[in-house]
């Protein structure tokens, strides 16, 4: 059951072929259907009440293009604050938590005419690569329900892959949009840091977090990204730039562009099937007029440890507000202040969150601060410089695998955090450098979806998505 694309849905609603509420109702029906079998997908933690969702804006065409998402159902990761649905971050700590305000990206998608289908499952607070670290149970990969959808935005990726919604919002701190997009066979975009407001995105690692979009096609991911982009005075790290025209440049192609393939991303140890998909993708880009070049990003091998030191350090501070004093879990038996903290946090946080808070606290501690946090900051600067040198050398895009493996079976890596952390090996560098990246379906490996990742210089989302569109077209995706 493939629903119409977001572009097509919005067109039909605007011209009055379809009532504005109908696409949402159909999406809700598909969501319930997906969870009805013996192996429920469980993409959603909560679903919208269509009567209430209808209140958000009219969707008739006013001739000014005011409602680019008219009637379009959008799945929203449950770490983005919404007024009408709980915002849990898949954490016991925030079970039932209602935000008194709405995230900027949610307000913008509603203002564009979009309809929130529901809040999607994730690894608790975005910490994980499989969506198994959810306090409310894992999400299954719609392409193979015995396998994980990737993570942390696994619910959003699954919602799109299952055809429930044509597009979805996620957040990407170290690959949390791109990796599940690859594992579920959909498109996932992480924009430039600062392109999209983080106001109302529950922080995991503030200097790395960025809201991203999923689409069944590059066009749908681009359409949603356009609607949520642009400066937000409530986020001091959001750039003072207008929302870019992405959809209008999708068919620009790659003629004359230089595509670099970094040696460090196609090591000898890489799964040969994945290597074959990347080789095929590069041939398609070359056929479309791009020049392919081997390049080197020498500091790549430090990226995963650098990422985990920084992300956990920031997380240890960002998650300090979950203290049981003002909201969320408050252990009833705790009396003294210290007991309130200890009991509430012990009850509220899952093991991976606890592990990362401990790691991050350690990395910032007196005596270790410079050795871990300080050094990681310096390496981060070197990783960003690697990219700048490649761009300065005339390279327009980089082509890499998104994930070193396809979707793995549920439970396979649950007890091995390091192998789980290595899932992010090709994705964390874009977050460390703040540059945009997109994962596009690039065929299958071992009978499972495989994703190709394209990266570009900061603020180059429009040409980046045009390159992604070129790949999509030549790989037989959306025509």
């Amino acid at each position: 059951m493939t629903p119409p694309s977001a572009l097509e849905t919005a067109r039909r609603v605007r011209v009055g072929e379809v009532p504005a509420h109908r696409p949402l109702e159909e999406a809700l029906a598909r969501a319930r259907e997906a969870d009805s079998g013996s192996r429920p997908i469980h993409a959603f933690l909560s679903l919208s009440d269509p009567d209430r969702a209808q209140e958000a804006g009219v969707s008739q065409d006013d001739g000014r293009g005011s409602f680019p998402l008219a009637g379009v159902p959008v799945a929203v990761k449950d770490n983005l604050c919404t007024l009408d649905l709980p915002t849990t971050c898949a954490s016991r700590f925030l079970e039932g938590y209602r935000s008194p305000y709405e995230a900027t990206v949610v307000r913008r998608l509603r203002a564009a005419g979009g309809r929130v289908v529901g809040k999607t499952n994730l690894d608790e607070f975005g910490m994980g690569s499989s969506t198994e670290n959810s306090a409310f149970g894992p999400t299954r990969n719609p392409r193979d329900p015995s396998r994980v959808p990737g993570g942390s935005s696994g619910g959003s990726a699954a919602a799109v892959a299952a055809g429930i919604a044509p597009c979805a919002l996620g957040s990407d701190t170290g690959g949390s949009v791109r990796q599940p997009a690859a594992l579920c066979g959909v498109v996932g975009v992480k924009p430039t840091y600062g392109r999209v407001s983080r106001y109302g995105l529950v922080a995991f690692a503030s200097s790395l977090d960025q809201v991203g979009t999923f689409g069944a096609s590059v066009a749908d991911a681009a359409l949603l990204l356009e609607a949520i982009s642009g400066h937000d005075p409530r986020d001091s790290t959001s750039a003072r730039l207008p929302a870019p025209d992405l959809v209008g440049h999708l068919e620009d192609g790659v003629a004359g562009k230089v595509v670099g393939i970094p040696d460090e991303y196609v090591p000898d140890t890489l799964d040969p099937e994945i290597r074959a998909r990347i080789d095929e993708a590069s041939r398609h880009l070359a056929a479309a007029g791009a020049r392919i070049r081997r390049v080197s990003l020498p500091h790549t091998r430090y990226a995963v440890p650098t990422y985990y030191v920084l992300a956990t350090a920031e997380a240890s501070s960002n998650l300090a507000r979950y203290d049981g004093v003002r909201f969320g879990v408050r252990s009833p038996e705790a009396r003294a202040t210290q007991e309130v903290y200890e009991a509430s946090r012990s009850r509220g946080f899952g093991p991976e969150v606890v592990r990362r808070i401990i790691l991050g606290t350690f990395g910032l501690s007196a005596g270790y601060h410079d050795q871990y946090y300080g050094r990681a900051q310096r390496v981060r600067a070197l990783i960003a410089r690697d990219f700048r040198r490649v761009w300065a050398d005339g390279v327009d895009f980089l082509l890499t695998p998104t994930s070193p493996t396809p979707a793995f079976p549920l439970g396979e890596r649950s007890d091995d955090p390091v192998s789980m952390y290595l899932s992010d090996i090709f994705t964390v560098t874009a977050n460390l450098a703040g540059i945009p990246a997109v994962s596009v379906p690039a065929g299958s490996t071992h009978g499972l979806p495989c994703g190709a990742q394209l990266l570009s210089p900061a603020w180059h989302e429009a040409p980046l998505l045009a390159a992604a569109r070129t790949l999509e077209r030549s790989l037989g995706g959306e025509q």
Partner: protein
Amino acid sequence: MEAVIGLEIHVQLRTREKLFCADVPEFGADPNTRVCPVCLGLPGALPVLNREAVELAMRAALGFGCTIHRRSVFERKNYFYPDLPKGYQISQFEEPLATDGLLEVRMGDDSPETFRVRIRRMHLEEDAGKSIHDRVPDRTAVDLNRTGTPLVEMVSEPDLRSPAQVRAYLDQVKRILEYLDVSDCNMEEGSLRVDANVSIRPRGSGELRTKTELKNLNSFSGVERALEVEIARQMALVAAGDRVRHETLLWDERRQTVRPMRSKEDSQDYRYFPDPDLPPVLVSAAWIEEVRHSLPELPEARRTRFMEVYGLPAYDAGVLTARRPLADFYEAVVQAHAGGDAKEAANWVMGPVLALANTSGEEVESLGLEPEGLAELLTLVSDGRVNRRAGRTILERMVASGSGGAGAAEAIMEAEGLSQISDGGRIQGWVEEVLAAHPDEVTRFRGGERRLQGFFMGEVMKRSRGKADPGEVARILGIRLKGDAPS
């Protein structure tokens, strides 16, 4: 032995809105009514820097001669406390807004003795909320209205040597902050908070020994007393062959003693790191210059000018420049009383005007007395139309009636018939009456009891109901008493 003291002063800036959100703080508002997702630290909320706070902090820093850094960085100071909603305080650490200030402090208003205190740094940070322990039995209540209010922390070098110097320094700091108009400087409401570091060492030695930190200092005199107690405690320890331990002590105002804070709270590792939600604060050279040019004349400069331009004694200049509104009032009176005697104006402002303010518990500028009104009164006196005594009466009426503006003095003079009588004939009549009524005193005066001059003056003034020109009375009295004097 001598004491070595450094102070950390937290100054609440009088911005309209909080440091990182748009809430408007108000002292005494109902608990938890001046809050929003940002200062409550709700999931997903983000801070946005208030530029007004940066400007006020720059004003303060420039007022103390600091160098403003073109780039400064907000960091997170991580610790758990119920009134700290995010679990960290946004402050500045490695790269503060300003450093390297210097303050010349005078020991008293007319003291020629000054000493220098170096200001190590001034940085911006957000205030925490308040934990209230006595509202609900066995529980701690939390009020987050104050959370996120902008503070400047001003750290001095350990350049102070005695509690008296500390007091003089604090008075001077407060005076300058008031001149700069950056803070309410109200210790009771917590808009000025002081912590002290103190150690002792042999007099003249350059070393820095183990210090203790004093907290819970709720008034300037409390700071002074706490330091006296703590210095005495350290002296006694050392005299007994013991050593001073590094610890944080709380001043107990009621018991007039210090007691150690729980060591758990003392040995914190704050795990500072740059706040990734806030880009570095960049201030342009032009902005710094703009703020520098907007600074008012500061108290010490004004004091010197008052001495040079108005010919005031050091004491008068010190009193009149203690508060900027008082100095402004005085200068406005002098301006309006063009050609008048500036010292005479100072006498009036420091004498009867300040006395009236003290009696009514008001500040001079809020008495309802306008500088023009007072200047007109001074003109009436200097022109001889009223005498000083009637002038005081008119001043009291002006303040009491709340009409202290232009024209008021003359109107009251007319209405109350207080204008001075200089008519020699009428004065002569009162003099004759008085001499006739007190023949004994006349005899005693002529017998050499010259101090009776005052008695005769008083009697004549009484008969004139205070309106006679005292100079004329004295002149006529002199002639009459001398005229009949035996040779």
